[in-house]
């Protein structure tokens, strides 16, 4: 059995065989996972400095020189690395931070990190997806669309499976609710309980739920539908909320109302929250950094202490950094144009198994083994469950962890 590292569900039941440099047979892979496995055979990177192919030793040596001479390096990405590599990365940031201001940030620093920090600090109650499969009779997909982002979420955990207390499953016992700005593929499945909001409409929607739970008339156009929702919530025996980017971007720094809603729901019945982090080990990084610093997604190490706040965000760091280590993500594809442009003007060290916009712009490219396929290790599923895995393909490429260890030695 293989683990699929295509998303944060880390599906453990994958059967795959490879032949002559291609995926020959696969079982249980979703469409996204299939693309992820096929990616092992296309657009692989080679060690490069300034566009010229070099040995891996030269590339690592040059990477270390750049980081060592930087006054404010940014170490960005991490969400698609093993925990072992992430630990090495945090240690590297600390080491660099002894003589410079080294910012380390993962991809969740723009979105899910704010919610994950509340989950990790215990402000928001969470649960495992196995709990959801066994007990949940109501699942709310709020600003999330697992049919597109985590395709096997509904079949493995939240809607279709027959759990310990949910043998009658979706036919009789499970209700799915979608709250979104569009009729997403997931919302189509939840057609009876689909609530379409305008962008930024989440706060008024929460206020309306709170009002109707307290027996007041909600200030919404469709009062009848809102009362139906309140009835479902009140009858729920065990509920789960899966917030996605839609909700988190909408709330930004106004998480208190969401926490207030959760507190009110939990007075009635248990409602747990599992943030829908996207990348395969984003939560792993959040947990490691939180354990180390009390912050989940972005900090700056400087003179032995860790600083947090807007001035230590990726956006701020991108404007003042003089070197970038990109690993486990493709920041030039994923970040706003202004930030991407700022990064592209600095010397970038890209540790990546495959070609990306970032590797194309990088001063140094270091190829690495693909996590889950060529590199084993540990990752944390979106619900906090740790999963260990072995590589399923032979590779002579160094793992992220090995590359970082060599850079660490040299700086």
């Amino acid at each position, binding site marked *: 059995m293989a683990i699929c590292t*295509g998303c944060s569900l880390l599906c453990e039941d994958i059967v795959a065989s490879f032949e002559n440099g291609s995926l020959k047979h696969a079982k249980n892979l*979703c*469409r*996204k996972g*299939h*693309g*992820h496995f*096929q*990616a092992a055979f*296309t*657009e692989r990177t080679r060690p490069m400095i300034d566009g010229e192919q070099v040995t891996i030793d030269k590339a690592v040596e040059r990477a270390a020189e750049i980081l060592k001479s930087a006054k404010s390096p940014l170490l960005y990405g991490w969400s698609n690395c093993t925990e072992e590599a992430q630990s090495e990365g945090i240690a590297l940031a600390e080491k660099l931070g002894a003589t410079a201001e080294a910012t380390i940030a993962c991809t969740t620093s*723009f*979105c899910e990190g704010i919610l994950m920090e509340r989950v990790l600090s215990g402000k928001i109650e969470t649960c495992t997806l196995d709990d959801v499969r066994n007990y949940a009779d109501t699942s709310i997909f709020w600003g999330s*669309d697992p*049919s*597109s*982002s985590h*395709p096997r979420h509904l079949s493995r955990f939240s809607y279709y499976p027959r759990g310990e207390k949910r043998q009658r499953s979706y036919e009789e016992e499970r209700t799915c609710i979608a709250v979104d*700005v*569009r*009729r*997403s*593929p997931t919302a189509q499945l939840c057609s009876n309980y689909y609530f*379409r909001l*305008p*962008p*930024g409409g989440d706060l008024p929607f929460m206020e309306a739920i709170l009002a109707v739970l307290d027996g007041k008339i909600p200030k919404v156009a469709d009062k009848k539908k809102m009362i139906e929702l309140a009835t479902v919530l009140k009858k729920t025996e065990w509920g789960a909320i899966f917030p996605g*980017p*839609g909700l988190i*971007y*909408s709330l*930004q720094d106004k998480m208190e109302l969401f926490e207030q809603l959760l507190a009110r729901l939990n007075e009635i019945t248990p409602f747990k929250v599992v943030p829908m982090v996207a990348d395969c080990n984003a939560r792993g990084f959040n947990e490691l950094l939180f354990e180390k610093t009390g912050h989940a997604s972005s900090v700056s190490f400087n003179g032995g202490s860790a600083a947090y706040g807007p001035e230590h965000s990726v*956006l701020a760091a991108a404007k003042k950094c003089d070197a970038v280590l990109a690993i486990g993500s*493709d920041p*030039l*594809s*994923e*970040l*706003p*144009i*202004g*930030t*991407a*442009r700022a990064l*592209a*003007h600095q010397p970038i060290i890209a540790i990546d198994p495959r*070609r*990306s*916009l970032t590797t*194309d*712009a990088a001063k140094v490219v270091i190829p690495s083994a693909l996590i889950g396929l060529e590199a084993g290790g540990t990752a944390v599923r979106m619900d906090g469950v740790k999963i260990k895995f072995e590589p399923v393909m032979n590779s002579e490429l160094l793992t992220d962890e090995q590359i970082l260890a060599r850079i660490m030695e040299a700086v």
Partner: protein
Amino acid sequence: MAEVEVVVVAVRDIFQDEAGRKSLFSEEYKSLSALIILDKQDMAGLAVKDGDKLLAKNDAGSIVVAARASKDDAKEAHPGLAFMCSSPWYNQLVSDDSCQGSVKATLAPTAEAITAISEIQARMKS
């Protein structure tokens, strides 16, 4: 020439995601990323049909994308609200101080070619 102001919301699509995993530099990924889903009223306002090209611009930048009409029926019409997959094309419209989840943009028909990934790469280096 007709112009329409819209809020563009970033969404996910499993087909676009799969295409990106295979290659960010492929025509398939470009065709699924440089694509804006519009309400039928906005399509009519711009006098465009599926596949016609639109220049989307705001203070952050500009991009040429293909238009496609939303499949939502009249009951769920969403004039002024458009959707694009998260991608380097969408990110051309995102400023550093705006929320990445949605952006405001002005759309207008254009004869220009759909923005190539190589053009986006060149902009980053400019």
